[in-house]
């Protein structure tokens, strides 16, 4: 039943992707409400899935790689829904949906939904640490998407080859403002996640801690460079993409090591 909800959710996001591709191929892309509605519906099904899974587990559904991917996809959709009315109907939704489809599609296809025996009662600090960190990843994912949109538009402006998609992208300065806001949001949540990790009252693997602090420092450096005007917007946008790839790799690593040494 819960997997069915997830399949329906993925189909909703897929509908947004297909519509965008068809429209872009025909050269008649319109930033209508369809994408927002499709993503909204997908988000409702995601929430229902996570809720059922959470009740079944008696804890936050972050016990294996499958659940982590779904939670991450849910966080991306959540931040997209919250990021502000200015971006809801813009092309950002069209860029968000493929990322969610990719995450959920992989989670559904790959044999990663392995149930681990629960040895200890749920630890609220650990759950808070994990969930808030993944929501931070959602904000970083959106910053990455905005970064890609920035780079696409920047390149078209530089090369003077303006395609149909160019006319639907938000202005460069607005996109950069969105990137900055998303970076601050993600950074704040990630800091909270790291700090809460130290309250879990159980030893954390040294490699994970070092890698997490490394990611934190990377985003701190991007924001510092932005604040001190040392980094041009184009570089900030590129670093958002690099940062998210690094963060995703770390998340994979953490979850993989957690599976080899399962958390209670």
């Amino acid at each position: 039943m819960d997997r069915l909800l997830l399949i329906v959710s993925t189909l909703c996001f897929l509908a947004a992707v297909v519509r965008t591709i068809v429209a872009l191929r025909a050269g008649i892309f319109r930033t209508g409400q369809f994408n927002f509605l499709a993503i909204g519906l997908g988000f409702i099904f995601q929430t229902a899935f996570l809720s059922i899974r959470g009740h079944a587990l008696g804890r936050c559904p972050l016990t294996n790689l499958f659940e982590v991917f779904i939670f991450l996809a849910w966080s991306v959709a959540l931040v997209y829904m919250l990021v502000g009315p200015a971006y809801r109907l813009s092309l950002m939704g069209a860029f968000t949906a493929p990322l969610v489809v990719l995450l959920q599609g992989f989670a559904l296809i790959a044999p990663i939904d392995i149930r681990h025996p629960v040895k200890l009662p749920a630890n609220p600090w650990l759950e808070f640490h994990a969930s808030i960190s993944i929501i931070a990843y959602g904000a970083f994912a959106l910053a990455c998407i905005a970064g890609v949109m920035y780079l696409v538009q920047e390149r078209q402006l530089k090369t003077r080859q303006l395609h149909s998609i160019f006319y639907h992208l938000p202005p460069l300065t607005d996109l950069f403002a969105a990137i900055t806001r998303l970076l601050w949001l993600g950074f704040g949540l990630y800091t909270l996640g790291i700090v809460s990790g130290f309250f879990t009252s159980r030893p954390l693997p040294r490699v994970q801690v070092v890698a997490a602090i490394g990611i934190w420092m990377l985003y701190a450096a991007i924001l510092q460079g932005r604040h001190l005007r040392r980094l041009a917007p184009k570089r900030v946008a590129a670093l958002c993409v690099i940062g998210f790839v690094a963060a995703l790799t770390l998340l994979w690593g953490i979850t993989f090591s957690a599976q080899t040494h399962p958390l209670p």
Partner: protein
Amino acid sequence: MNLFCVGLSHHTANVETRESFAGHAESDCILRRAGCAEALVLTTCNRVEVYGASEKRVSTDEIARCLAREIEKDAHQCAPAFYRYEGEKCVQHLFRVASGLDSMVVGETEILGQAKKAYESARASGAAGPWLHRLFQRAFHVAKQVRTRTEITRGSVSVGSVAVDLARKIFGQLSKRKVLVLGAGETSERTARALVSRGVTDLRVSNRSSDRARELAGLVGGQAIPFDDWRDECREIDILITSTSSEAPLLTPANLAPMLCDRIDRPLFIIDIAVPRDVDPRVNEMDGVYLYDIDSLQSVAEQSLALRRQQIAAAEAIIAEHVPDFVASISRGWNRVSRTAERPSIADSSLRALEL
């Protein structure tokens, strides 16, 4: 009742011929002289067309004579330039005209306003009755659908409007942006005016001749800056329009780099419309600098036009949906009128009834 269109346009006649027939006959004049039940004259710089509804056939020559009579031109000489569409073809033609598909610049929207004005004028004079009312209302509806469901109006096709569109794509709202016009030529004046019309309020003008700078600043509501100070202004401004007659580039990566130090997070949009160019093309490679010279602007305009042309098929498909439907509905109207043997009144109440 027969719907028809007789006219000439840039497709069939040169400007000399078109101006011989333009603006000399009003719709009521055609109505009176040619014996139509209803008539409407649509005159633009690219076309002169008469749309009419009549019980009996009104010849093309008769319409041409009506259009030309005021200047005593021999309409017969220009007869080959006239085209004629009747019934379904007439409906299709008007839908294409209103949607901008028949325009010289495909997708231009000015024609819709001109068609609306022509219709209002004909309706006010009583020359346009219920048949033309239905025809034109549907044409306006179809044109609106074409605009919203296709990208036929997307992008700008003139150098000035391309520059303004690009500025908006970089900066969003232009109201708080600072613009420097370097060199007070005609093209920079047009571009500056276009920016002012889109909300720019902080506009500075610098020219070797300070009198000309003051003159242009006065015309566009800007502020004249001494020519020696223009480099200092580059630290503050967001958009630079340059069109001086300098033989050597005024801006190079070497002299622009120090100006960009304090503004790394603020883009600089440079519109170089000078020939020879005022700005070294390598400036475009610098972070946050977007340089467009006259060829680049022209190229963007051509890309927009190509994009519009790609949309013609989609627009034609929308028109093809509406034409048979409209023809069928108007045929039903004619049959009803024939049965009651009443000629429809051109009073507003009838128009409303038919509109419903």
